């Protein structure tokens, strides 16, 4: 097998475990979106156009609360801001690739593909550019199609889910389950804790603007504490 081919399959293999996460997440998105009143085709346009799970959930929740479009957008985009870091981290590896290749890769730059690529490049520092590109698209293969297919399945069964299943709480549980493993340092814990307290205290503010103030202040507090702890060591 050529080195490029084997790099592709290493990518597929490295991203394969994510299937276990992507299937239930994707289905949940489909169910939640159709429960919120979207048609199956609208759900699919949404998931294909945006392709960023956490922000799709965030947009559904804020739209259900009848927030204005600008607030929905700011909230959902804020969830995706972390991807700036992914873009920065991968840029040195792919800078020499043709621009159209980088344009396609950008669409597929998600948590899972970023994570597998950084691990691979640390393990194998002397990969060629074409191997790196092949690896990236390998890691896309088990993630993106599965996410779209799972969203579609969820959207198709969505309306059939009875109210007793308390699916209204699927979103909060999903968000909490995503936050909890991120609480790995004191600044992260402080940011999350402060964010919870402030969002409760500011819940009276109109159209979910309290959320943005709470998140902005907590993010700043987390970063400030992080910087202070670093200076002390």
């Amino acid at each position, binding site marked *: 097998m050529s080195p490029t081919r084997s790099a592709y399959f290493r990518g597929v293999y490295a991203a394969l475990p994510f299937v276990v996460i992507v299937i239930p997440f994707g289905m949940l998105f489909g169910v939640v979106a159709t429960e919120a009143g979207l048609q199956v085709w609208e759900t699919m346009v949404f998931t294909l156009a945006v392709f960023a799970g956490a922000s799709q959930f965030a947009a559904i929740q804020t739209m259900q609360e009848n927030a204005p479009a600008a607030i929905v957008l700011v909230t959902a985009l804020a969830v995706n*801001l972390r991807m700036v870091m992914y873009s920065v981290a991968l840029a040195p590896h792919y*800078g020499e690739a043709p621009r159209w290749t980088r344009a396609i890769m950008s669409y597929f730059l998600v948590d899972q593909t970023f994570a597998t690529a950084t691990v691979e490049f640390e393990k194998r520092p002397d990969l060629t550019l074409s191997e790196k590109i092949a690896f990236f698209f390998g890691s896309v293969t088990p993630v993106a199609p599965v996410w779209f297919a799972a969203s579609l399945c969820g959207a198709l069964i969505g309306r059939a889910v009875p109210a007793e299943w308390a699916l209204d709480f699927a979103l909060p549980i999903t968000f909490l389950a995503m936050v909890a493993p991120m609480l790995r340092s004191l600044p992260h814990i402080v940011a*999350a804790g402060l964010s919870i307290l402030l969002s409760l205290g500011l819940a009276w503010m109109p159209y979910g603007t309290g959320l943005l103030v709470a998140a902005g202040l907590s993010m700043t507090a987390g970063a400030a504490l992080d910087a202070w702890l670093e200076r002390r060591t």
Partner: protein
Amino acid sequence: MIDRSTFWIVVPLLAIGTYLIRFSFLGTLGNRPLPAWLTRALKFTAVAILAALVAPGVLWPAATGGQTDPARLVAAVVTLATGIATRSTMGAIAAGAAALYGMLWLMS
């Protein structure tokens, strides 16, 4: 119910905005590193936004008309605790769902 005009404003703009975030450095040959304070702040965006997004709905769920619901509160605490203990998102979801249905069943 989601307002359709909001939906059709949000979807294309969110798609373009998210794409530009991903394309930002990868697409523009940007080998310049980000300023340290920005990298630091970005580490905390997801935690801060997701926590703020979820807290009011946990304490005052819309499904119960804003009344605090023991089943939903317990499910939230179990989810968070399991996620912290196991570092597993799927494990936390499973535990939270089990707690929610267990509590709803106990209370019925």
